[in-house]
């Protein structure tokens, strides 16, 4: 190709590239959500006199232009491939992929956040649980990086320090160590969460420490759902095999009723409709719910359990049901702890604070 032809080619390609892309943008229909990224997408902002005079409209339009770009998922995949295979970067947007699992790097340990979480738990204890004949425990769920980072040499938070900070700043609660009950195989490859069918050792550890091990006799059946695209599947933006979601069933679950304080309705332990949603893990107790109770009418005891929990609690809580007449789950990421007294009478219950390291390291979420 001679210089003149090259210049013609370069000019034509440059003009065509932007012309065609702009045309595609104009023709592209807005999507409200991204299935892969599991989030709402920015929509075309409406211009007003006020937002056009500030930079608000421009900022929103920038977000819209990124979120609604045609073939967005394809471009994200191209970027991830380039990042991993051309530039040999070890992670893409903090997503680290090993042969065993996909993790999001959570680093460094935010000491102030952990102390804030401990203070929040202590505040709840002082407000509702002190002198109420309650047995109070707290436990920490390690995230996948605890197992994966040392093996693969990527940075992870100082877990020993996290546990020490929690223990130093929490009185009147007994700590239950779960770190040695778990391994990387107990978590989904493409998701942040643990696998319910592999939680029996964890349940037994908690039950032993809280003295209800003798009330656990149920035999569970393992059920499968596939494909399960975990939260990191979309974030990694790379082609990879999906997981299979496992859930346990037992007759006790058929007899139990779940009351959702937000909707005021009773449901089952599992919401099978969620299997068709963007996050099938929400099938466990319907996912993110601020306050709910699981009632077990066939319980052999009138003992009650209260669990302060995050999303990891959804899959393990059903496994405690047979040991209690009622299990109450509270997620203070979605309900302010000051309002709890309006809904729950704290008296003569077992109480478990069960939080993942991910939430403790980002405790501004806790209200």
């Amino acid at each position, binding site marked *: 190709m001679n210089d003149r032809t090259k210049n013609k080619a370069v000019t034509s390609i440059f003009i065509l590239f932007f012309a065609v892309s702009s045309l595609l943008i104009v023709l592209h229909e807005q999507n409200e959500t991204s299935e892969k990224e599991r989030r709402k997408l920015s929509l075309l902002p409406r211009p007003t006199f006020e937002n056009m005079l500030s930079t608000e409209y421009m900022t929103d339009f920038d977000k819209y*232009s990124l979120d609604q770009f045609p073939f967005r998922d394809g471009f994200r995949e191209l*970027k991830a491939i380039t990042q991993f295979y051309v530039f040999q970067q070890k992670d893409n*947007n903090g997503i680290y992929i090993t042969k065993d699992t996909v993790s999001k790097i959570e680093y460094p340990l935010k000491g102030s956040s952990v102390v804030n979480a401990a203070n929040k738990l202590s505040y709840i204890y002082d407000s509702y649980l002190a002198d109420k004949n309650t047995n109070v425990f707290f436990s920490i769920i390690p995230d996948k990086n605890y197992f994966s980072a040392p093996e693969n040499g990527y940075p992870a938070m100082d877990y020993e320090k996290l546990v020490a900070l929690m223990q130093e700043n929490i009185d009147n609660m007994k700590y239950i160590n779960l770190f040695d009950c778990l391994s990387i195989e107990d978590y989904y490859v493409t998701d942040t969460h643990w696998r319910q069918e592999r939680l029996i050792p964890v349940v037994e550890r908690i039950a032993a420490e809280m003295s209800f091990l003798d009330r656990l006799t149920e035999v569970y059946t393992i059920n499968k759902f596939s494909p399960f695209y975990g939260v990191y599947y979309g974030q990694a933006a790379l082609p990879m095999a999906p997981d299979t979601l496992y859930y346990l069933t037992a007759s006790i679950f058929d007899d139990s009723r779940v009351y959702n304080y937000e909707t005021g309705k009773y449901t089952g332990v599992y919401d099978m409709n969620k299997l068709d949603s963007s996050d099938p893990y929400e099938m466990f107790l319907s996912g993110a719910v601020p306050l709910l109770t699981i009632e077990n009418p066939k319980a052999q005891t009138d003992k009650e359990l209260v669990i302060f929990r995050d999303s990891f609690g959804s899959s393990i809580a059903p496994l405690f049901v047979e040991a209690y007449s009622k299990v109450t789950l509270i997620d203070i990421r979605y309900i302010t702890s000051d309002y709890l007294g309006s809904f729950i009478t704290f008296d003569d219950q077992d109480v478990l604070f069960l939080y993942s390291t991910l939430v403790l390291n980002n405790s501004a979420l806790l209200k």
Partner: protein
Amino acid sequence: MLFSSIVFLYYFLPCVLLLYFISPKRMKNLVLLSVSLFFYWWGEPKYALLMIFTILLGYGHGILIDKFRGEKTSKVFLISSVSTSIMLLGFFKYADFFTKNTNALFGSSFSLLNFALPIGISFYTFQTLSYTIDVYRGDAKVMKNPITLATYVALFPQLIAGPIVRYTTIEEELNHRTHSLDNFAYGANRFVVGLAKKILIANALGELCEIFRDSGEKSVLFFWVYAIAFSLHIYFDFSGYSDMAIGLGRIFGFHYLENFNYPYVSKSITEFWRRWHISLSTWFRDYIYIPMGGNRVKISRWLFNIIVVWMLTGFWHGAEWNFIVWGLFFALFLILEKLWIGKYLAKAPSVLSRAYVLLLVAVSFVIFNADGMKEAITYISAMFGLQGYPFITDETLYYLRSYAVIIGIAAIGSTPLLKNSVQSLQQHPTARRILNTVEPVVMVSSLLLITAYLVDGSFNPFLYFRF
């Protein structure tokens, strides 16, 4: 509006190209001015009027300077032009700096203005100044058409992050420029190269610098990695922007001067500043240093001139002490080179003189990017093992491994190795034909990759927007 944004690339630029090339010749400046004002307004609605006011000041002063040419009044209007421009710059950029230091020094409690810095104010102020000064000196003809002058100052390719285009550089082209296939192809190529430098290299290095700042396990090696990464980051960020500006300018028929010439291969600090941000250093040379007497004065005055010019150069970059110290740091080594070590550097092996430059530049950019002088001193002492950090940590190793390829590409890309190789190959007709065939393919691939990084990316600031 950032060049490296979807809004610019896929909304603004196609519309501008269409409008510009379909409009008749006599309307082209008006089109450029209108889209440039829109471009500025999009990023800074509040301050668009300030820029228009600055342009009108420059226009009015130019007319008056020319009208009273040969009379003392002409000089009065020059002084008026310089002082009003500097006052506006001082008010919006430096008022809080002086207030803070006055309060600290005298225990007073004057309130801070807390104004957001108008984007690009340092660039368009200096451009306007160059116009009025050149008109006064007779180096440029007065521009009687306000649209043409406003087009020069507000031209969006260089409006907010340079290079500082002198009026005399494009005086002729403002009214009589040609558009050609060769110009368009060169400009498009240069624009994409700049975009790739910014999006693929500079942003990644910027992320590494952010990771370092947030790190919980810093090490001596990590401080060095940071110093090197930031030196490369600022080069690719700013030279990438200059490439884009030069490329866009060329598409519209303007020939801007080069702003960078591979500064990291310099063998002295003197040479470095002939290759780094050339439009700024030559501006200070021609409008401050030489009018002060330059080097044709006695040695004490000469040293004074150097110190003043470099203090101002540092201060131009930001209203903080670390920028002033950064400028004075270079003044010190420029003086040392002129008086003592220059002759030794000239005779030293290239590897040594280049290592000397790279070391000083890396240290200087740690000062430049520090959040105050306290942090600068801490970082520099940590680089030399004086802060008790371990030599290396697992975290350092991880990020070093993760960014090794990017750093390697950036290091090679900051030298003329690739350019020289391509030029050498172009001497052979067959190789030239192959390169010509590859070039459009590389352009499309680059544009796709750039788009992919933009669509997925979150780290995308331009460093020189804050100046």
